Each structure stands twice: as structure tokens, then as C-alpha cells.
């Protein structure tokens, strides 16, 4: 009995100390700003891996989600004879919610897990400690570019996702189901506000990008340096990122769009 209580307490302390380590880790990464001359090429390389290579999955998902929204919206709205409102429905859903959230989930699965596995393997093969031995700060050289790349790539991906989704919705609504195109865009433009909707969506995706990249690099850096440790760290990255994104989304939505 005592053992169980002690284990519970130890587990709780482990969780808290892991939060503490991740915080210290983040401070270490952000404080060690690399020199532009050496840091920029590294950042660029990570932007390529994290951002450009995620583009395909983001564009394809965006297209299909937009098309599904168009189809679902049409079937429901045409019952009320207001199918012209699907432009507004698709745009608001994508720009406010689905764009940032789904992109973040895809990003955690596609890029976050890869970051964790890569850094974890670097740790397991002692590349990180040999860097320290050579006097190169691994936080600055390895971690910081990956964190910043996730931070920068996510809003770009989310914006592209929304645009492709709106285009997909237009494809279904206007071209296939015959909604009047002028009303489609007109309704959209009169109801979507640039600052309140588009920029708030971008802020959301910036937050998500930061959180996802942070979790991914931290899990990699903090993993148990064995093959089992790397695999569990990769799983944790995807699970924690998804939970963090969905939870934060609720909080951010309440702050941005709730009227209180």
C-alpha cells in the first residue's frame, strides 16, 4: 500500500520535473540565438524538412476537407434555401478553426515525430555529447534551428491549408453543385473580417507551431537513449502535441471569439 502511494508521488514528481526541464530547455534554446552567418543556413535546411516537405500532405488534406465542407454545407443549407451561405460557412470554419488545428495535427504527425526521432537518435548515438565535447552547443546548433523552423513553418502551412480548402469548397459548391459564384464570394467577404478572423487564425497557428515544435524537440532531447526510448518519445510527441493543440484551441477560441 505504502509502495503504491510512494509510486504515485514519484510519478507526480516525475511529471512536474519534466515540465521544469522542458521549461529550462526552452529558455536555453531561446537564449542561445545562433549567429546569423552560421545559423541561417541551418534554419533554412530545417525549414525545408519541416515546412516544404509537409506541404504535400497539407495541400491534399486541405483540398479534401474543403470539398467535404462544401458538400455537407450544401446538403444542409439547401434545405433552408440558403445554399449561397456555404462560402461564408467554409471560409469561417477553415480560417478560424480547421486551418490551424488540422494543420497542427498533421504537422505533429508528419514533422514533429520526425524531429523527435532524429534528435533522439542523435542522443542515442552520442552525437549530441560529442558535439558538447567539441565545444559546440547542441542546443544552439541542433535544437534551435528545428524549433524556429517549426515556429515559422506552421503559420505558412495553415494559411496555405485554408486557401486550398476554400478553393476545394468552391470547386464542389460552385462548379459542381451550381451555387451562384457572386453570392459565394460576396457572402464570404461580407462575413469574414481580416483582423478578427484571418489574423486570429494566424495567431492560433503561431501558438500551435511553437507548442508542437517545442514538444517535439524536447521529447527528442529528453528521451531515454535506447531504441525503445526513442519509439516511446516519438509516440509521446504525437499524443502530447495533439492534446496540447486541441486544449489550447479551446482556450484561444474562448479568448478570441467568445463574447465575455
Amino acid at each position, binding site marked *: 500500500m505504502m509502495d503504491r502511494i510512494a509510486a504515485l508521488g514519484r510519478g507526480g514528481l516525475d511529471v512536474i520535473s519534466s515540465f521544469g526541464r522542458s521549461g529550462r530547455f526552452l529558455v536555453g534554446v531561446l537564449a542561445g540565438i545562433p549567429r546569423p552567418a552560421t545559423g541561417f543556413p541551418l534554419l533554412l535546411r530545417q525549414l*525545408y524538412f519541416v*515546412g516544404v516537405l509537409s*506541404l504535400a500532405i497539407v495541400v491534399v488534406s486541405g483540398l479534401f476537407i474543403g470539398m467535404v465542407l462544401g458538400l455537407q454545407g450544401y446538403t444542409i443549407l439547401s434545405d433552408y434555401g440558403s445554399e449561397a451561405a456555404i462560402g461564408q460557412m467554409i471560409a469561417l470554419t477553415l*480560417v478560424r478553426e480547421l486551418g490551424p488545428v488540422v494543420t497542427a495535427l498533421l504537422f505533429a504527425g508528419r514533422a514533429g515525430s520526425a524531429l523527435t526521432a532524429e534528435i533522439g537518435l542523435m542522443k542515442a548515438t552520442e552525437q549530441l555529447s560529442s558535439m558538447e565535447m567539441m565545444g559546440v552547443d547542441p542546443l544552439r546548433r541542433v535544437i534551435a534551428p528545428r524549433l524556429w523552423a517549426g515556429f515559422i513553418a506552421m503559420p505558412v502551412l495553415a*494559411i496555405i491549408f485554408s486557401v486550398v480548402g476554400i478553393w476545394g469548397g468552391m470547386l464542389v459548391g460552385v462548379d459542381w453543385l451550381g451555387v451562384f459564384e457572386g453570392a459565394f464570394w460576396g457572402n*464570404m467577404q*461580407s462575413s469574414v*473580417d481580416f483582423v478578427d478572423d484571418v489574423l486570429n487564425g494566424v495567431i492560433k497557428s503561431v501558438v500551435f507551431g511553437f507548442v508542437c515544435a517545442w514538444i517535439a524537440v524536447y521529447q527528442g532531447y529528453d528521451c531515454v537513449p535506447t531504441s525503445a526510448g526513442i519509439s516511446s518519445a516519438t509516440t509521446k510527441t504525437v499524443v502530447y502535441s495533439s492534446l496540447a493543440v486541441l486544449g489550447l484551441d479551446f482556450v484561444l477560441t474562448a479568448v478570441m471569439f467568445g463574447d465575455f
Partner: protein
Amino acid sequence: MAQRTTEVIVGLFMIAGLAALLFLALQVSGLSPKSAGDRYTLYANFNDTGGLAPRGKVSMAGVTIGAIESIELDTETFQARVVLAIDAGIDNIPADSAAVIRTSGLLGDQYIDISVGGDLESLSPGDTFYSTQSAMNLERLISNFASGR
């Protein structure tokens, strides 16, 4: 991969993102330099604003001429005081015009329609509409009809 190629591809990626943001701004949210242009303020007091909301439109003869900036309660008269931002180009609204709350369609958004009066004087910035007509409340209408008033 060569450094140069990475640079170009990442550059294209960022440009694609910027272009997408521009598309959202111009095509989706209808943000144009003109719409954020000069506006002046008018006030209107209503007994009941119904479902009127800030950012709603203000129109005249069906043409949008401004937006609702804010709605607050006047604690002296207990009426709703609506602040309207009207495009600066429309500076000759007759002083006896009325602000009427209307609904677009049966279930649509509520907006303020300005029905034009015939006065030669026009409203200047900061003025209050003299006559207003509150939101049509379907339930009240039905209960009035049922009780024969």
C-alpha cells in the same frame, strides 16, 4: 542537397505562404484599402436593438454606406445607443432621416437601414438620428395581435 537549391525551395515556400495570406485578405475577407477609409460617426438611440451586432452594416437604399461600431446602454434613458461609422463620402444625409433596424431575409442578420428624409439640412459628424425605429420583434408582434392591441 545543394545549399542554393534549398534556399530557392524554402523561398518559394515562404512566397506561397505570403500569397495565400494575400488571397485570404483580398478575396476572402474582402479587405480593400478603400473600406478602411475615412469615416465619421453618427449616433442613434433605439428602444430595442434586437439582434443587432457590432460590425453589422449600415445601408441606404440597399447600398452599404458604413458599419455599426458599437452598441452600448445609455444608463440615463435606458435606451441602446448605437454608434455608426459612415463613409466620409456620404456627408449629405438629410437631418430628418430615420434609422430603422431591419432584417435581411427572414432569418438573416440585422442591419440598420437609413430611410432618407427631405430636410435640406444634413447630419454632421457626431449628430444623433432624431427618429429611429426599433427591431421588429416577431413574438411581440404576435402577442400584440393576439391581445387585439
